[in-house]
């Protein structure tokens, strides 16, 4: 209970928000819009899972938005060229892995600070993509949306896939040696080295995995509509990092829980829809969003303040 206070307080904030909606705007819970909303969050959730690993490893990756854009355009162009979906999927994941591994190599191999490295790769991929695509949408062939399934089937499939992935990752972080290595390296890389863990390989792995998940997420985004916008990753990094830190992942590594990240993401993602449902005017949205982020963590701050020794 004490250990998971942050996660629980975020979950409580989310529950409170949903409760208010249930009372004031019950139509919020009608199935179709809810399903569409949740489906729209699946790519972010997948990226957030990877980002959580990287942050727990005491690193950060702010290039995921750009990576996401590149992967989405790659996937879109391949799909438009008529290649089958598995090829599209694996190429996108592969591109993500390559970009993630590059970050990982620069960080772990050369020992550069990750925020600087990924700041650099962020602008690199973003500008390269801008020069290459000039903002042009990629129109996809008809069978691509929802993997060629019906809308309901496609949405269910995406949500299930994302949740299964989340559960698997959460299980692995707790029960696989590799997951524990990430925690260990994030807590103290030197101690990890002395314990016989290879911090470089662990860090490289975390970045590569984040890249792969970003590639996967890009495809999950691409199949949701008949066209790809090249700037579709803009702002994604901020969103998933916010979800992680609000969800209780410690920015200086070693602590965090993927279910907390899930709660954090849902909380952040539900603010805007909630405000619309409560008929709050748009120019209040950002301010309220900021307030909710602060309030969600203030509870935690008050608690630690009281119990500080």
């Amino acid at each position: 209970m004490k250990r998971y206070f942050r996660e629980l307080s975020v979950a409580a904030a989310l529950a409170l928000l949903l409760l208010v909606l249930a009372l004031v705007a019950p139509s919020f819970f009608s199935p179709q819009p809810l399903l569409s909303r949740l489906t729209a969050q699946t790519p972010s959730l997948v990226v957030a899972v990877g980002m959580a690993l990287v942050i727990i490893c005491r690193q950060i990756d702010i290039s995921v938005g750009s990576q996401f854009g590149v992967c989405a355009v790659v996937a879109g162009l391949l799909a438009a060229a008529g290649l089958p979906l598995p090829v599209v999927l694996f190429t996108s994941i592969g591109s993500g892995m390559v970009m993630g591994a590059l970050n990982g190599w620069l960080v772990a191999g050369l020992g550069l600070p990750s925020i600087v490295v990924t700041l650099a790769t962020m602008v690199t991929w973003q500008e390269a993509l801008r020069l290459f695509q000039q903002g042009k949408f990629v129109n996809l062939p008809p069978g691509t949306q929802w993997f060629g399934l019906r809308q309901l089937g496609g949405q269910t499939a995406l949500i299930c896939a994302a949740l299964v992935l989340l559960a698997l990752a959460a299980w692995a972080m707790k029960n696989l040696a590799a997951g524990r290595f990430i925690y260990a390296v994030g807590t103290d890389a030197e101690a990890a080295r002395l314990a016989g863990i290879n911090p470089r390989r662990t860090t490289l792995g975390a970045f590569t995995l984040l890249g792969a998940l970003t590639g996967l997420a890009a495809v999950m985004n691409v199949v949701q509509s008949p066209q790809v916008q090249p700037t579709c990753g803009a702002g994604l990094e901020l969103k998933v990092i916010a979800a992680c830190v609000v969800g209780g992942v410690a920015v200086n590594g070693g602590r965090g829980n993927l279910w907390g990240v899930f709660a954090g993401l849902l909380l952040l993602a539900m603010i805007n829809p909630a405000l619309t449902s409560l008929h709050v005017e748009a120019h209040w949205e950002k301010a309220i969003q900021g307030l909710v982020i602060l309030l969600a963590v203030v509870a935690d701050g008050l608690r630690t303040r009281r119990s500080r020794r």
Partner: protein
Amino acid sequence: DKKSDSSSAGNSSDGKKLTIALLPKSKGNQYFATVEKGARAAAAELGVELIYDGPTNTDPAKQNEIVEGWVNYGVNVIAAACENREGISGALKAAQEKGIKIVTYDSDTTPDARSFFVNQATAQGIGETLMDTAAKLCGEEGEFAIITATLTAANMTEWRKNIEARLAAKYPKMKLVTTKPCDDQKDKAQAEATNILNAYPNLKCIMAICSPAVPGAAEAVKQAGKAGVVKVLGLGLPSENRQYVKDGVTQAVILWKVEDLGYLTIQAAVAAAKGTLKTGDKTFTSGKLGAMEIQDTDIILGKPFVFTKENIDQFQF
């Protein structure tokens, strides 16, 4: 209050190529990429050098910086699409004082800061066309919502004002329920449209006034199973909306011929620099487009064009 129009004609007469700088509101955006295409065609035709640069995201301060950089670089004409009407006028006026011709296109600055405005449609024209089309689609009554790029975008603010003015004046039975920003993101527009559809069950129409928002809103309506029930219209490119228009999800896409806008802008810029286009002229003959009407200092490209199911296949941009 404008200087003599022949001041920079010497540049072309001494044999040096004219340098025209074209400023988009933002780069890496298909609308302005299409403008650039038209502009490059005109530049090649006229044998002038074309510089194309702009902020990589819509940033009014960056536009000023780029203009000031061009003044120092020594361009002959600046053709600008102004993110920010007043914000950029200072920089443009300073450029004028250095003898640089200023032409604006797409969205204007204050009249004293430029010679001509290549007018594809006035803010008033756009606002009224949007509102009138929406009213027609809804049968002049019911709720509608707007999706814009950001709440602060200057031209969209102008359009919204005109939409609201038209609404107040002509359509008392219609009601604007909400205006949401989408940050020029299709996916965010889709999310916002989903929310709006959910929060306002009686909604008749969504009006998307930035181009990524049109397909975004259409996808939301489609997913909600309300195609045709809730009408979608907006300002956008035919290529991004073709399928939705054909499927009857989007009823109307409004735009002008974007490539021609770029073409005409460069034609006018060069003519203004050479002195063949002067204040007070009533028409302007521009290459392949032929004679264009000039109202005061506005060169009129033509009325906004409404793309529908019937005509959308004729346009490829």
